């Protein structure tokens, strides 16, 4: 197992490097430059490009990024924050995005799981339809509409929560953003748990378990849900990455100082260093989670026997 994890980790690092390299190549295709303020002259733009090493060949830029990144230095932002070190930009913003994303995943997957289980157990009843409608509505309403609705109802009318994020009240003021973000997760998990569980419930070993007199909660929790979990985790994993690295729309609406907006602003302003640093963080989280999921598969369902299958092919 340890050898397997080591091997997977090594591959993960190589994948990460490949991603960063591809990013550099992609960025080279982006038309325009980060130095595009209205009043800059051609000479000034050339000076700035030289100052930040953007006149260097692509591979040299890539290499210096890799070197600097391993020493914890992401360079400075060119455009959206003039000359500010990106590490200081991230250290303030990334934790906020990750926390709110984490809250949303937690809330969404718990609610989704409950809804999904109810729908599956009460298959083809009013409850089932209710859960289906709820989860479909969940994916059909754009998150910004839902967010504005929440903020109007709970922020403006009822005044339960602040409308805008306040760093002095980090949890209280992030509740609305969390709920708005969790909607999609909840809906996806609910729908998926339902189909999975239905599938599992009709399988022979559940019938067998039932015939052995195991029923009710124990049957669901121990035998059925366990098998239904694998595909659910598969769906959850990419959502986790997306949510942890911030949502542009929800962050924008609730004025959350997160990284979701930074990426879009970085792309629009051609702020390569910000985009690369954020993508790097994104990829890092993504690959870490995928690695975790692969290992989890093996743990949850021994029949997959990833470890055995891959260490000794």
């Amino acid at each position, binding site marked *: *197992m340890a050898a397997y994890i080591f091997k997977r980790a090594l591959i993960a690092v190589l*994948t990460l490097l*490949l*991603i960063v390299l*591809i*990013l550099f190549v*992609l960025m080279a*295709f*982006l*038309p325009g430059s980060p130095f595009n303020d209205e009043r800059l002259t051609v000479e000034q733009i050339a000076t700035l490009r030289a100052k930040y090493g953007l006149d260097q060949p692509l591979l040299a830029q890539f290499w210096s990024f890799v070197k600097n990144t391993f020493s914890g230095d992401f360079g400075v932002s060119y455009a959206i924050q003039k000359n500010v070190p990106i590490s200081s930009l991230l250290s303030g913003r990334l934790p906020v995005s990750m926390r709110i994303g984490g809250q949303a995943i937690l809330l969404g997957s718990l609610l989704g799981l409950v809804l999904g289980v109810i729908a599956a157990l009460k298959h083809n009843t009013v409850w089932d339809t209710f859960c*289906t409608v709820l989860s*479909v*509505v969940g*994916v*059909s*309403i*754009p998150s*910004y*509409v839902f967010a*504005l609705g929440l903020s*109007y109802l709970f922020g403006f009318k009822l005044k339960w929560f602040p409308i805008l994020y306040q760093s002095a009240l980090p949890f209280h003021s992030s509740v609305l953003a969390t709920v708005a973000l969790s909607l999609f997760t909840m809906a*996806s998990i609910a*729908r*998926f748990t339902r*189909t999975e569980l239905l*599938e599992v419930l*009709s*399988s*022979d*070993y559940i019938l*067998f*378990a039932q015939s052995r007199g195991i029923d009710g909660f124990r049957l669901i929790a121990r035998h059925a849900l366990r098998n239904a979990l*694998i*595909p659910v985790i*598969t*769906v959850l*994993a*990419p959502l986790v990455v997306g949510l942890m*690295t911030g949502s*542009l*729309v929800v962050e924008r609406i609730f004025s959350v100082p997160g990284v979701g907006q930074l*990426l*879009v602003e970085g*792309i*629009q302003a051609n702020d390569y260093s910000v*985009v690369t640093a954020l*993508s790097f963080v*994104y*990829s890092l989280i*993504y*690959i870490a989670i*995928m690695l975790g999921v692969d290992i989890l*598969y093996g743990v949850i*369902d*021994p*029949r*997959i026997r990833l*470890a055995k*299958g*891959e260490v000794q092919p």
Partner: protein
Amino acid sequence: MTMQAEKKAENSAAEALAAEEFAFDEHDFEFAAQGVAAVRAAEPVLPVSFTKEALLRLAKNRGALCSLFFILLIVLLALVGPLVSGYGYSQQLTGHDNMAPRIQGLEKLGIFNGSEAVPMATGVKIVNKYEKLQGGEKVYHWFGTDVLGRDLFTRTWEGTRISLFIALVAVLIDMLFGMSYGLISGYFGGKVDLVMQRIVEVLHGIPNLIIITLLIIVLKPGLPTIILALMLTGWIGMSRVARAQMLKLKEQEFVLAARTLGARPFFLISKEVLPNIIGQLLVMSMFSIPSAIFSEAFLAFIGIGIPVPMASLGTIISDSFKSLTAHPYMMAFPVVVLGLLMLSFNLLADGLRDALDPRMKDR
């Protein structure tokens, strides 16, 4: 693996094994060398064909039928709606801005009569723009108009057209490419899986937005580019699910049995595994419809969507979002159409799942 883990695995495997009911068939003990033909022969003889039976089962499902009806209705309206309204989708009528819905007949009931309650800062004001408009008594905008005085009925159906098209392509790519990719990767496992999953990881490890933005900026902005950009990474979710399903199923006894009998991979995947998982995959692909539609709307949100004045459901919703507190009707209709579409697709998928599941036969 540690000792305990191994023991645990053994236990559950034994349990799973014990749980299976073995119903041996006389052909089960034929030689593997007989291959595909033998496995085909081993399939129980069905009184009616699989497809026909599935359709029959679908027809019994009222929810699914209802959904099918709504989908067809929406498709029909998307096709003819823009033609019957009498307005062009980009036609701006002077003085017709922000008009509330007004429908012949219904207006006599006091609803959809063109008046709306505008929540002015100084109090709610009932406004009926049709009355102020010269010759306004003959004007009807069934869904109202937007801030530029464009007929929203026309725009909603025009937008539905484009959104449906995007959804269709999304599902196709999902089902064709994403599914095959995941199944192949999961089935072969080992090195094949390793390489294929690393490709997915690299593709997915780059934030989607960067790939999409880049494509749209480099290529000419427009519907084909947007679809290409969305599809480039859109299939990954499906491939992951398909792979996970395959991983789960491939060591199950019926697959092992077929493999022992010498079935070829393609046959195994398409005839043994696919029917068992198509339900989940269908449901999954239904989810790729809203995500495709909203990805497109999101692109509009950051300014690289469908070129104005063209519209999609997503762009109409995100445009009318800006006037939500002032004129909620602008968003109501496209959201209802979108919601109905989503609900129908999902219920239909559920019905299909039940109909296609070979194990649901006897229920």
